[in-house]
């Protein structure tokens, strides 16, 4: 008989439940199992009604974010042995509406992500289509860190500002705006600034810094937001003082 550990899993069945309740499952405590493996074990062997999202199992897809023992974590990278002897409490990501069990509603994030136009905006009329747009390693280093974002939404779950007012555009969306703003091939910074410089944009952030601590990919959204604030403030001063041709 192998050693076991208890998972306390948040269950919410909208057709019958008024709110979430906890259900406990005993799962084998295997050294090579992450919380996601344990959930898959429960789903396959114990209770097929458990609902949760997952896909790649290797920290790339950003689907399996949940609240593990109160912390926003990717469950594929959170190992059972690190939380032994347990119990391990597994809840949906905080700050989002819950659809069922551990599955959250992410439409709000998808709209926000689209609003910052996370792609290269560029007037290509003068480009030679047969020539690549080259970039030096130092130009790439400018945005590389922000490009590691996998849209897992752990930063939204960690952010008290987003929890208190979901109108805030949020850490990942701003980090991704900076990822393109700082790209030497991109010309869309002014377009994105109109979204970022709104009250619900960068100015809603009070620099708690929890998004950066929660990020499993080392993106540092908090740093990206403060840098975006500096740009927004600079642009506002320039717009006030300088004629259009001199703003650059």
């Amino acid at each position, binding site marked *: 008989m192998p050693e076991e550990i208890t998972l306390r899993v948040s269950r919410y069945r909208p057709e019958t439940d008024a709110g979430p309740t906890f259900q406990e499952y005993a799962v084998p405590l295997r050294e090579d199992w992450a919380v996601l493996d344990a959930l898959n074990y429960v789903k396959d062997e114990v209770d097929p009604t458990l609902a949760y999202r997952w896909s790649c199992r290797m920290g790339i897809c950003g689907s399996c974010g949940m609240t593990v023992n109160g912390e926003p974590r990717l469950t594929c990278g959170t190992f059972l042995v690190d939380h032994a002897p347990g119990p391990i409490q597994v809840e949906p990501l905080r700050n989002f509406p*819950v659809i069922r069990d551990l599955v959250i509603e992410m439409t709000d994030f998808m709209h926000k992500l689209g609003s910052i136009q996370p792609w290269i905006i560029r007037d290509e009329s003068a480009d030679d289509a047969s020539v690549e747009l080259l970039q030096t390693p130092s130009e790439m280093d400018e945005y590389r860190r922000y490009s590691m974002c996998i849209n897992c939404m752990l930063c939204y779950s960690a952010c*008290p500002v987003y929890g*208190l007012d979901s109108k805030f555009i949020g850490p990942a969306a701003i980090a991704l705006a900076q990822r393109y703003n700082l790209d030497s091939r991109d010309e869309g910074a002014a377009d994105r600034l109109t979204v970022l410089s709104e009250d619900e944009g960068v100015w809603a952030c009070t620099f*708690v810094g929890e998004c*950066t601590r929660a990020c499993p990919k080392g993106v*540092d959204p908090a740093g990206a937001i403060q840098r975006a604030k500096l740009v927004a403030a600079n642009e506002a001063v320039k717009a006030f003082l300088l004629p259009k041709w001199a703003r650059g």
Partner: protein
Amino acid sequence: MSGYQQRLYRQRVPLFWWLSRRSYFAFVVRELTSLAVVWFVVYLLWLVWAVGSGPTAYQRFLDRSAEPWLVAINVVALAFAIYHTVTWFAVTPQAMVLRVRRRRLPGQAIAGALYLAWLAVSAVLVWFVVIK
């Protein structure tokens, strides 16, 4: 239209959310200690007003400032202002990207420069108030 209606469960932020994590609490304390900075601005304005109003007003300001309750307020406010300053110095490198010859300055250099500036200003004040 199907007959299915989505019934979302909306999670609520607890009233005392800022007590739920150490880092949230440290953040709230950092923000609230800014009131100590406001107090010192008011105190400084009071001093300027007293100096401008003549010797009697200035003496009254000095007498008031020596009263234990005002000394206590100032000591507590100083502790809060120092906490506020140190926590902001700690996060400044995250917000500031400075380059020297196209190389990004390390965070310790930026924080170090802030502490040096603080030290320099303090030294000038000590020279004025104590030595001169």
